[in-house]
């Protein structure tokens, strides 16, 4: 069985989960509004509180979602990070694919099925 993943896919396995544990733990706290506010008040300090490494912290501060994925971020918790930033999953898709949100939406729409009234 091949473990090779398609290009642009980051398999979230034990190695990645180990690397990303603190990052994901930080983003897990974004379930709570007080934590979201604490992050917004001082992003760098909040990253430090959870022990993110410098690469992860830089990626958080720069909204570099691909770097977060490469450094152990799980999309489930990165989605909560996107929520803090007020970004939709289409915005997130645009950021990760190097497109505008409209371009990313157009890519989704190019795969349209089952919308005779859409």
């Amino acid at each position, binding site marked *: *069985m*091949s*473990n090779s*993943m*398609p*290009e*642009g*896919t*980051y*398999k*979230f*396995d*034990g190695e990645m*989960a180990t690397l990303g*544990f603190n990052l*994901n*733990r930080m983003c*897990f706290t*974004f*379930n*709570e*509004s007080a934590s*979201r506010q604490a992050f917004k008040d001082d992003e760098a300090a909040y990253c430090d509180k959870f022990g993110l490494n410098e690469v992860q912290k830089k990626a958080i501060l720069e909204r570099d979602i*691909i770097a977060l*994925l490469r450094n152990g971020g*799980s*999309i*489930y*918790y*990165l*989605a*909560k990070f*996107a*929520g*803090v930033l007020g970004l939709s*999953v*289409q915005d*997130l*898709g645009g950021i*990760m*694919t*190097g497109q505008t949100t409209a371009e*990313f939406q157009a*890519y*989704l*729409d190019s*795969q*349209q*099925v*089952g*919308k*005779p*009234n*859409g």
Partner: protein
Amino acid sequence: MANIIGMIGTSHIPAIGRAMDQGLEETPYWVDFFDGYKPMRSWLQQEQPDIAVLFYNDHGLSMFLDKKPTFAIGCAPSYENADEGWGIQPIPPLTGETELSWHIVNHLIENDFDPTVCQDIKVDHGATVPMSVLYPGKAYKGVKVIPISINCERHPMPKPARSYAFGKAIGDAIRSWNSDQKVVILGTGGLSHQLDGERAGYLNTDFDRDCMDKLITDPAALCQYTNDDLTRIGGAQGVELAMWLAARACINVPVKEIERRLVAPISNTSAGLQLLVPA
């Protein structure tokens, strides 16, 4: 013996909940998708199931990576939900069915499945969105829910064949429960989609159609896939097919299809809807 009346496969993405909250069901983007629920809601109203056994995956509300079950089953009298960090409104709690939950747990462990048993757990959009969309107006008070979660986040995940066997054992458990209650099975999530990476936005509606066909005619054929296969063919979150497989496996007889929709894109996904009943 309890009676399994059928299976509903449905997407569970947060965008569906938001669309309902914002009254967008009849807008061009959504209308074809929500139309698919009308026959399902009518069927539920007609059949009046007492219990919904609901397969979902927790997306980081109750099951963080620190202690993340591979398979888990709710054994609680009720299930709250909560803020997940992106602004979907919490809904009134779901009512549980502890007697059947424990019956399933006992049966599973006797039959060599060892799920995590949850006596107090919050459920996330994976469970609340399907209940909200199938029972508009939050009118799900009359149906008791047993949430069963499958890890779809962190590899290693259960093999599709294992989720199928798990569902089969749960179906056997339900049928062996000494009760005349009616049970509907909900398989949630999917279908093809990939949220993360430069490959984000990938869908494979041909594969989704094939899966929906196979769920009717030959569900065991879907057990040939590994989770890596599903990632390649159906996107990184295409592994959520596990919940549909487990749900279908609860019904141990041939089925017929009452309703099907496949609509894409719905948010970043190809969204499936399917109602299958014993033939």
